[in-house]
Each structure stands twice: as structure tokens, then as C-alpha cells.
């Protein structure tokens, strides 16, 4: 395909500067390669090697500690339980036979086909929405990205629950006199699972494809049109250019769907449709815990991430997709005529109504209507729960329990942890994205890529348990290093969930940045750091802000890792909310959720507003437009 596109896809790697020779390179302060003799040469070479590969090694080392060690520990205990105090054998394969007896393959195949279906749907949904918002004058362009945000933050179990509230026998539709029983029966099955997950994971496809579309000026389309090409020819040019983003979105949606627990434990479980993550969860919560079985299932989940990666390496092998250079111009929008504009606007609005309307209904109904279903006709709307949460005391009949639902401490703690995690993730994620976006990855990078995507496919409970195995070793305690149940380890756990996802979202954008941007700065005499600051940071600044915001929000509400790793006495907000809900105080739990959401929206408004006000205008125009 690439042979047929005579556009600037081939990076002129090494064209001009090498021609200029080492003297010129030395003059402009570039590292020089060539034959030298003696100790000086050796020193220079060592320094050169360090500057070339030092950064990469440090990044891989951090990833190794954050992801490889805990995931590895969890997988290892499946064959060597004794190593982690989980059994008597140093080596056994009994967990495998146990896992295969327990329908592991069936659950895994269910998960895989659902993920493939969700990928296909989300390419259409995410790609279509990205194109409409980025490239047409569809109505409401300023508000849709915000909605996409809200969708990214909506937990999948809440979406499943919201739809259940709508469709169930005594649900909202039934109250309104609409007979939804036919839809209800279809919904409670694989179809509903695919439907909810496709809606929930659409933002991942939207974000990655939007990023690519934003960096793609309209010059490619114009070039085709000038040469007499029609729409199909245009698509044949544009689609391959977008390949890294499309593949990144496939990989991400696949892994996110595989790892989903919210739908697999509610909708899928209730309709007797077993998925892999539920099998893992069940093995882990069984007593005595079957960590071995969970480990085997995790190995299978991790391996499944090879499917989208194989596709990715087949398609992108050795090609460059750098299109974001100094010559990139903002794209022109297609001006739709009125009927088309209205039709597209209603398609977008319809999507958000399906995706956000239902969970919103679930969340707000749950918090205001104290007896959902039973007294639904009376519309028993009450603000009591909110009053209790804000005053920090709970009224139980005649008994007042002081401090029972105190919100301030967990809220502040989660705010702090989420901000630290988001900041480290933005920086580290960018470094990882640069490594992964390498055009000709070595075996090491490929293995790292599989591990990272695989870790996205693993449910949080596996990472959490892996962290306990890896960082609560008796030998470490003997040396006085007790990381388990401390805040630093909790932050590391959060990073292990956020860095793989965020680096993959950034990868599409990073792959587009043409090295000519940096070369231009260096040729003009800028030193490495300042070239980087003036030519690279502006291009990726929006992506960084976006990564920060997504990570902040996801971390704020992260539950499984928080549950397993939080220091006793220092509850994050997600654990506090879960405790109320699991003790049947749904009203208080939901009211806390709503207040926490308001705080998160305030942080999002301050950070994105701050970026808009403080960052130079040029920064905001390059790269991702209309994404955040």
C-alpha cells in the first residue's frame, strides 16, 4: 500500500546532516561518530553510548520494577507456589489442569470474541465521531469532547446498571408504559455485553484517532483531489497514514475490553456468560485462595494481547508515519449542508444519549431515590444522604454516629495520590511512547510492548496481588524495607495501571512527530535540551495535559489496587465509597460518588482552563485539537 502513496511518508532519515560531515556536526554541537583512537576516544564513545541508550535503559528499568516484577511474581507463583509461601511445591503444573477443568478456555474465548467485536464497533464509532468532530462543521463541536471525557470516566458497571434500570421489568421504561421486555431479554446476554463495552471503550478509539487526525493537515486530501482522485482514492491515502493511530486504538480497545471487570461481573455474570476476568476474580476470592488458577488465567490473558500486537507489527513494520512537521497546516473542515449537518449532529447526540444517559440515570436515581423500584412511583427524592456526607455524621433512626461518613480525609488523600500519579505518568508515559514508537523495534522493545499491552489486559486485582507477592517478601522486611501497605507502593501500583495505557494513547501522536522539528532547532544552534523544549514539548504539550487529566481521574476512582495496597487507616475515597455500598448504605455511597465527581470535574476545569490561559497559543494549535 505504501508504494502507492508518493507522499512524504518516507522519512528522509540521515539525508542532510550526514552529507554535511562530522566537522559540521561537531560545530553545531552534535555527537560525532567516526574512527578515533586512544582513551579519549573510548571515553567519548562511552559517554555517547550512555547518552544514546542510558535514557532507554532507565525507562525500561522503571517499567521493570513497576510492571514486570509484580506481574512476573503473580505468574511465577502459578508454577512455583512455594516461592511466595502459597504451597509446598517449588515447581508444579497442577494449577494448569485445575484451570482447564474450570472452563478457563471457554471464558477466555468468550472474552476474546467480545473484545474483537468491540474493537470492530469502536473503530467505526470512535473513528466516525473523530472525523465528524475534527473535520466537519457538525453541531456542538465544542461540547462533544467534554462528553467524551465524561464517558471515559464512567465506570462500566455503572453503565451496565443504568441500562438495567431502564430495561428491567419494574424499570424506568416500564414505569413510562413502554414494553421493553423483548429488548431486555436480548440485552441480558452477549449482545448487551458487547453493546455496553463498545459504548464504554469508544473514547479510547476516539482519542487515539482524533490525535492522528489532528496532526494530519488537509494537504494529503487536497493533493489527491488536485490529481483528480475521488473520495475512495482519498480514503486509500488517508487510512494508511492513520495506520499507527488505528492500530494503537485497536490494541488499546482490545486490551481494555479483555481486562474489564465492571461488565463481566454484572451483566455478563447475571446472564450466565462467563468471561476471563470473572474467572480470575472468582479464583482469587475463593477460600483457600486459588492464586495458581488465577495465575494460569492471567498467563492466557497476557498472551491474548499478542493478537493485536501481531497485527500491528505486520502493518507498520519499518514504516514511518511522521507527518507532524514544521510544515503541518491546520486542516480545513468540510462544510456540511444543513440537512447533512443536522443528521450528523443527531447521530453524535444519539451516541452520547445511549452512552451517558443510562449511567447518569443509574447514578442519580440511586442517590436520590432511597428505595428504587419499590417506591418508584412515589418519587421519594431526598437530599438526606448529601447532608449526611457533608456534615460527616450519619443519622441512623435516633442514633447519631459522629464521623461515620467523614469525606474530607479520603478525598484529600485521593486528590494527592492521583495528582502525583498523573504527573509521573505523563512524563514516564511519554518516554515509554517514544520507545514503543521506534520504527524498527528490537526484540527487547517487542517483548516490552507485549508485556505492557498484556498488563493492560490484566484486571487490577492481579496487579494488586502481584504487588503483594513481589514487594512483601520476608527478606526485604529483614532489611527493614517494608513497602507493602505504604503510600509509595500504592502510587507504584497506580502507575502500573496508568503508564501502559497512557503511553499507548500517546504513541499515535509521538509516531507522528517528525524528527525534522528537532533537527531544525539543532541546526539553528539550539542545544539538545533547549531544542527539545522549544521544538518538541509544544507539539506534545496537549497530549501531556490530556494524559495527566485521564490518569488523575482514573486513579482517583481506582478500586481493586487501592483495596489491596492501601495503608490501614488511610482510606482512599474509592475504598470508603465501596465500604458504604457493601454495607447497604447505597444512598451515602452514591452521594459520596457524586460529590467526588464534582471535585474531579473542578480539577479538570482548572487544569484544562489553566492550560488554555497560560500555555502559548501556538502550543494549543499543534497536535491534538478538539480532543481535550
Amino acid at each position: 500500500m505504501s508504494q502507492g502513496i508518493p507522499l512524504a511518508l518516507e522519512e528522509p532519515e540521515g539525508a542532510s546532516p550526514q552529507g554535511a560531515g562530522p566537522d559540521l556536526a561537531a560545530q553545531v554541537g552534535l555527537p560525532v561518530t567516526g574512527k578515533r583512537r586512544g582513551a579519549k576516544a573510548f571515553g567519548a564513545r562511552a559517554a555517547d553510548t550512555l547518552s544514546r541508550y542510558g535514557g532507554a535503559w532507565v525507562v525500561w528499568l522503571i517499567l521493570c520494577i513497576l510492571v514486570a516484577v509484580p506481574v512476573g511474581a503473580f505468574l511465577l507463583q502459578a508454577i512455583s507456589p512455594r516461592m511466595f509461601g502459597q504451597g509446598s511445591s517449588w515447581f508444579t503444573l497442577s494449577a494448569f489442569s485445575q484451570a482447564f477443568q474450570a472452563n478457563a478456555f471457554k471464558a477466555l474465548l468468550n472474552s476474546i470474541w467480545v473484545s474483537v467485536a468491540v474493537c470492530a464497533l469502536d473503530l467505526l464509532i470512535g473513528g466516525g465521531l473523530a472525523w465528524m468532530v475534527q473535520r466537519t462543521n457538525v453541531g456542538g463541536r465544542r461540547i462533544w469532547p467534554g462528553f467524551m471525557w465524561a464517558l471515559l470516566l464512567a465506570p462500566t458497571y455503572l453503565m451496565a446498571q443504568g441500562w438495567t434500570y431502564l430495561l428491567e421489568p419494574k424499570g424506568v421504561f416500564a414505569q413510562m408504559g413502554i414494553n421493553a421486555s423483548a429488548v431486555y431479554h436480548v440485552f441480558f446476554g452477549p449482545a448487551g455485553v458487547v453493546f455496553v463495552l463498545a459504548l464504554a471503550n469508544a473514547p479510547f478509539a476516539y482519542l487515539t484517532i482524533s490525535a492522528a487526525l489532528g496532526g494530519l493537515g488537509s494537504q494529503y486530501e487536497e493533493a489527491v483531489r488536485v490529481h483528480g482522485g475521488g473520495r475512495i482514492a482519498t480514503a486509500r491515502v488517508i487510512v494508511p497514514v492513520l495506520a499507527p493511530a488505528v492500530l494503537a486504538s485497536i490494541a488499546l480497545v482490545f486490551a481494555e475490553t479483555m481486562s474489564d471487570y465492571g461488565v463481566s461481573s454484572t451483566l455478563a455474570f447475571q446472564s450466565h456468560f462467563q468471561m476471563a476476568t470473572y474467572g480470575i476474580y472468582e479464583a482469587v476470592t475463593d477460600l483457600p485462595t486459588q492464586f495458581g488458577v488465577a495465575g494460569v488465567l492471567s498467563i492466557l490473558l497476557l498472551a491474548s494481547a499478542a493478537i493485536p500486537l501481531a497485527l500491528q507489527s505486520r502493518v507498520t513494520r519499518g514504516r514511518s508515519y511522521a507527518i507532524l512537521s514544521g510544515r503541518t497546516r491546520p486542516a480545513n473542515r468540510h462544510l456540511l449542508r444543513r440537512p447533512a449537518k443536522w443528521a450528523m449532529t443527531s447521530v453524535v447526540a444519539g451516541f452520547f444519549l445511549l452512552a451517558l444517559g443510562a449511567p447518569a440515570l443509574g447514578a442519580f436515581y440511586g442517590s436520590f431515590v432511597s428505595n428504587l423500584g419499590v417506591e418508584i412511583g412515589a418519587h421519594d427524592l431526598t437530599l438526606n444522604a448529601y447532608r449526611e456526607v457533608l456534615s460527616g455524621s450519619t443519622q441512623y433512626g435516633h442514633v447519631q454516629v459522629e464521623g461515620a461518613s467523614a469525606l474530607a480525609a479520603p478525598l484529600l488523600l485521593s486528590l494527592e495520590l492521583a495528582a502525583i500519579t498523573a504527573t509521573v505518568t505523563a512524563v514516564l508515559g511519554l518516554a515509554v511512547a517514544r520507545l514503543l514508537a521506534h520504527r524498527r523495534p528490537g526484540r527487547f522493545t517487542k517483548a516490552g510492548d507485549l508485556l505492557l499491552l498484556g498488563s493492560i489486559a490484566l484486571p487490577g486485582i492481579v496487579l494488586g496481588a502481584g504487588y503483594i507477592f513481589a514487594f512483601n517478601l520476608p527478606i526485604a522486611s529483614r532489611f527493614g524495607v517494608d513497602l507493602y501497605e505504604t503510600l509509595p507502593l500504592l502510587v507504584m501500583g497506580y502507575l502500573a495501571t496508568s503508564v501502559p495505557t497512557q503511553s499507548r494513547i500517546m504513541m499515535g501522536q509521538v509516531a507522528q512527530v517528525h524528527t525534522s522539528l528537532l533537527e531544525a532547532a539543532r541546526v539553528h544552534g539550539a542545544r539538545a535540551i533547549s531544542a527539545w523544549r522549544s521544538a518538541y514539548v509544544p507539539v506534545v504539550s496537549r497530549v501531556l495535559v490530556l494524559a495527566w487529566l485521564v490518569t488523575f481521574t482514573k486513579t482517583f476512582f481506582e478500586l481493586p489496587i487501592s483495596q489491596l495496597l492501601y495503608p490501614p487507616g488511610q482510606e482512599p475515597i474509592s475504598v470508603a465509597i465501596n465500604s458504604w455500598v457493601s454495607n447497604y448504605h447505597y444512598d451515602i455511597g452514591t452521594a459520596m460518588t457524586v460529590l467526588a465527581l464534582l471535585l474531579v470535574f473542578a480539577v479538570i476545569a482548572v487544569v484544562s482552563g489553566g492550560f488554555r490561559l497560560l500555555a502559548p497559543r501556538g502550543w494549543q494549535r499543534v497536535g491534538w485539537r478538539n480532543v481535550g
Partner: protein
Amino acid sequence: MLRNPKNAVSRGKTRPALTGLASVALVSTALTLTTGTGIATAATSVTPLVVYSAQGYDSTETTAFQKATGIPVELDDDSTGPLLTKIEAEKNNPKWGVLWVDGATAFASLDQQGLLMKGWEPTVSWNALGKEAVPPDKSYVPTGFTMAGTLVYDDKTVTDPPTTWQDLLATKWNGDIGMNDPAVSGPTYPFVAGMMNYLGGVNQGEKFYTGLENNGLHVYLTNGDTLAALEAGIIKLALIQSSAGIGAGIKDPDIKVKFLPPVTALPSALGIDSKAPKAEQLEAEKFIEFVLSTQGQQLMQSGDPTGDSLYWPVLTGVTPLKALPALSSIKVQTINPYTWGSREDTINTWFTDNIVE
């Protein structure tokens, strides 16, 4: 396509960039670690008592205990599932001091793995139920009773509820019954085991649950989910823990609770970590004595009046909350937690493969 990977220029520029990024990441990670470890190591000279608990009244109880004794308490308040997962995962190097959850079978299983301190019992005046619930090796201490698998329904939609367990198999209730998954919900395995115990064995019990499944049984994760399904009208009969059902009845008078004979007793209990430092084990004993004191019992009954406070006491002289029916009006059975605790894994696997699937 130009293939010239040995391009010093492009490398020379991008790699320092990566080094820069990496060092920023490294510095910030290190900073997080040091500041956080500072918090972690700033412990007082008194060993804090680490309490892992899923009880609704736990924070009321630990706050009062800390005030009364000056022993600092670190409470990990969570659902039973994650707490037991943590205890199993940290077996190598346990960090917990005392565990407080529902279900003697869970404690029996921990005891059989050698994770509980044995041989200590507080000097209190047990009532009949309490005396029966203390294990022979004194590895855990009962604190109260709820019932597993009580029948909960809405009397607006169900006017003639079933009166025996066999009634549940009638086609009349086809698609109307819901229960929790024993592999996920702590208080549900004792219900499953209790039915097997009552019917005469594992095979008979499996037949009963297969019958329920053929009658369109709905399985949810926890009490809360099953209750939500009842309130939403998806099911008409919920088989859940008594405290959840009675609590729902306090909030909504149409919700009724019925105890099909026999109903299985579900003790809540406290167990001490066998590998905890001696000082912490002694603190844990003080905590257990506090919970079973007059003040401790009052706090247990006021800490969560629409949930876990709805328990039948294990001590003489403590009367249950008014919302609870008299024990004499209910036919209760207890099961041997050690016999049934060791079967939990295989029975849950059977349940997952045959009922949930």
C-alpha cells in the same frame, strides 16, 4: 525507502531527550518514594494494632477502643473478599493483627492453614449459641450471629411466600428466585453448605441447587446486588443474609424477612494473626475483650443499626435489637465449620461450573 539506521544526528538528539525524560521520571518517582516512606516509618513506639474488618460497626468500635486504651489502631475497613485475598497473599510475611468478618468456615479455613493464633479465649459469659460457636482449638472468638440464606421478599408482590425449602422448587416461583455467588460473597458459602448439611450430604445439596437452577435461579455477586434485583422487580424472592434483609425492612416496611426451617447460623468472629509480634497479639486480645464488654456490645449494636448491628448476641445479658425476631421463634442449625470449611473450594467450583455457568 532509505534504510540508514546508523544516523548519528537523529540519535544524538532524540536520545538525550529520552534521558531527560527518564531522569525527570526517576527523580519524581524517588521523591514520591522518600516522602511516602517518611510517612510510613514515622510510627510511634507503641506497636499499632492492625485491624482487618468488614463489619459496618468497626470504625465506631476501633475509635472507642483507641480512646479507652490508648493503643493506636490502624483499620483496614473493606469487604470480606479483598480482606481474605490480602491475608492469603501476604501469608509469607503477614501484616494484619486481627481479622473481623462473618463466617466461621472462613476462620476454620485460615486455621487449617495455620494462620490463626490458637488457645486463647476471653473470660466472658457465653450464652448457648456462643458456647457452641467457640472452636475446640480456640483459634477464633465469636462476636455475634446473623443467619445465612434468609428469605426476603416484598409483601406487595408476594402475598403467599414459600414456607419450606422444597416450596422454592415449585414452578410457581420459576425465574423469581435470586441468591449470591458463594465464591464471591462471604456469607453465602455457609448457606450452601448449610443446605447440604440439612439435606443429608453434598450430593443431596447439589440436587437441590440444580433444582433451583432448573427453576430459573438468578445468581448475583453479593447481598447488595441480590437485594437491588429484588427491589428492582427482577426477582421476587431473595435468599440473603438476615442483617441485609432486616435492614432493608427497616428502610422499607414492605420488605419482609422469613426464616425457612432450618436456617443456618452465621457467626461473626475475631481471629488473631499467628505470626503477628507478641505485643500486637496482646493488643488484639485486649481488643477482643473490649468488643465483648458491655460498652463494646453497645457500640456493636449502635454502629450500624440498619446493617451489621442487626445480630443476635453470643453473651448472656445482652438483648438483641428490637427489629430482630426472638431466637426461640426460629429453627436454627449450626454447621461444623471445619468439616464444611475444608470442602469450600470444591463445592464453590461445583457451584460455578453447574449453577453460575
